[in-house]
């Protein structure tokens, strides 16, 4: 219990209500442990961002959370269900406990306010008693943490490069030393050098501050390298979950396997790339049974009828879980 910081239970997220509703996230269970980096990957449109926004209740209309629980375990005190917080409580909770770095840093910073304003804003909102001087000192320190000189405080976002903006966002995310940082494709638009720089700094900071990261990307090679555990999403569900190295070495779900055979390697011998045939499912007309079965090379009778349940396939490896009838659960999920 002490080791879990965020538990997601049966989370369902819809776009729209009533007959028009589209279920983008289906019944997702996911646990984030203290201090770990949990990678979330999957096909585009599989609901990764929706999940991230949904659990923080930041989905824009017409998104609604239609079920489930998001339980947060603070360092001290009783667990809270984020989904039941009142707006005022939610505001208090946000950023202090979980912060978010969104995909486009250009759009995440308010273009008309200086970096300092936006950094100080969040500190003042949550620590109204702090003095202006202490806040400023803190802001400077934060920037230094992410490798930006303090004189950049007076810049406007447009005066910073994409990488710097992204780092400002990371600094801001760490301002209140939250327990959980959610990152939605924070480096997609950047080149690999910049990407590595940022991730390197992040890893270092995590070492120091000990927060947990939910890291969303579709760049599998990055995930394998950077995260401790990886969860794979397909069609709004988690289809596989495993420690990074294990997942890479031995994917269990056919979709994961397909993914791993879809990207070329930079080093070593050239290998055959098989890819995944077919196209992603339509959320409005999901295939019956396992959503992946129409594309699955290993599908067999019944895959189109029964929705496979996420379960641990090995008794000896409680950290692994997969939702595929090829690997029926043999042990309860250890949570």
């Amino acid at each position, binding site marked *: 219990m002490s080791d879990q910081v965020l538990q997601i239970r049966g989370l369902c997220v819809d776009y729209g209500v009533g007959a028009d509703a589209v279920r983008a996230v289906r019944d997702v269970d996911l646990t984030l442990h203290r201090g770990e980096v949990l990678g979330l990957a999957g096909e*585009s*449109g599989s609901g990764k961002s929706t999940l991230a926004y949904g659990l923080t209740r930041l989905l824009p209309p017409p998104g609604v959370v239609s079920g489930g629980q998001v339980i947060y375990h603070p360092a001290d005190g009783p667990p809270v269900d984020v989904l039941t917080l009142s707006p005022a409580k939610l505001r208090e909770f946000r950023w202090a406990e979980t912060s978010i770095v969104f995909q486009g840093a250009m759009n995440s910073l308010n273009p008309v306010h200086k970096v300092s304003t936006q950094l100080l804003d969040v500190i003042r909102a949550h620590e109204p008693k702090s003095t202006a001087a202490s806040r400023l000192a803190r802001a400077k320190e934060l920037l230094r943490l992410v490798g930006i000189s303090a004189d950049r405080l007076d810049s406007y976002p447009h005066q910073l490069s994409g*990488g710097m903006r992204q780092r400002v966002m990371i600094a801001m995310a760490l301002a209140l030393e939250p327990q959980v940082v959610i990152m939605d494709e924070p480096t997609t638009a950047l080149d690999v050098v910049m990407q*590595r720089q940022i991730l390197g700094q992040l890893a270092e900071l995590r070492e120091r501050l000990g927060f947990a990261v939910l890291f969303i990307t*579709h760049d599998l090679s*990055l995930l*394998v390298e950077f995260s401790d555990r990886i969860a794979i999403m397909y069609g709004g569900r988690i289809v596989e979950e495993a420690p990074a*190295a294990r997942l890479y070495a031995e994917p269990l779900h056919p979709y994961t396997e397909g993914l791993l055979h879809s990207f070329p390697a930079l080093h070593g011998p050239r290998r055959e790339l098989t890819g*995944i045939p077919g*196209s992603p499912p339509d959320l409005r007309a999901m295939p019956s049974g396992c959503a992946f079965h129409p594309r699955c090379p290993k599908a067999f009778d019944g895959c189109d009828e029964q929705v496979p349940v996420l379960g641990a396939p090995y008794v000896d490896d409680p950290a692994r879980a997969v939702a595929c009838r090829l690997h029926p659960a043999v042990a309860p999920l250890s949570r």
Partner: protein
Amino acid sequence: MTLTESAPAPADEVVLEAVGLTKHFPVRRRLRDLLSRTPAVVHAVDDVSIELRRGRVTALVGESGSGKSTVARLLAQLYPRTGGDIRLHGRSTRVRGGRRFRAYVRRVQLILQDPFASLNPVHTVRYHLTRSLRIHGNAGTGPDGLDKALADLLTRVSLTPPERYLDAFPHELSGGQRQRVAIARALGADPEVLLADEPVSMLDVSIRLGVLNLLQDLKDRLDLAILYITHDIASARYFADETIVMYAGRMVEGGDSETVTQRPAHPYTRLLIESAPDPERITGAGGDGAAAGERGHGEPPSLIRPPAGCRFHPRCPAAMPRCATDLPPPIPVDDAPGHWAACWLFDAETVTTQKAENAEQAGTETAQ
């Protein structure tokens, strides 16, 4: 499907060539800058020379903002160039709108970087493709001919069955499908050269693979010359015959893809390759990821006032005094034919003299 001017040329013939291509963008200045005299420009592309050959893929990689897209647009003649030359089949061309421009784009087609922005949201796939066919006179005769040509085009990019996609609007397509429509549009012109600007950057790996395979196939079947711009160096390794690396508007290294990716010569290329995420690293050899991060520390240079000499020198771990003053020319690297790097490290003479100087300097420093 007939090329108007030249009879099918032998493979490997240079189709499109850029010589010393340069592009400077004027920048809109702030109020307080208004009084200064020198016109500020972004040195987006400086002195870039590329040869695109029949049936070959040339990859262009580099950091973001290094001018890759600008090169592509210059080659497509969408921007007027500041300097240098573009030669189509050896003949210098400079077209800006009008009939000659259209004749040019028939042979050189561009796929723009962003698949979400490059299709007009108000038009259907049919409209986009029909226009492309019509303009270039490939629409066949009569409605039947057009339908056949459309179906053919969609089939070629594996959007089958064609009827399912013809009347779709762009927003009804997935990213990969859009990208394929953009490719189909470019193919509708029946070009000799395809300039593909990051055609797969936004797609997840499985869709990405599909698109690349398609291009590969087209290249083989139609003998296209392809310029493939990407951030994904691994895909350049797999997909391109030749790879060129750009940094801050200049070419810094070029050569056979396998060589460039496996034995990078220029310090920037090395940094790039080391930075690329590689799952093998945690499982196997790798290990120097952190070191790479250390080394590449620093910001990309300002393109308005680019550093003198080698543009990479402020960040270069192997920088020598000469790097800050003299612009390195392309210098052949000996490990493979055609492999070159714009770096003084490969100029034996420089290396020796600078080493001597370094030693001297070190000597004086310790003496103090």
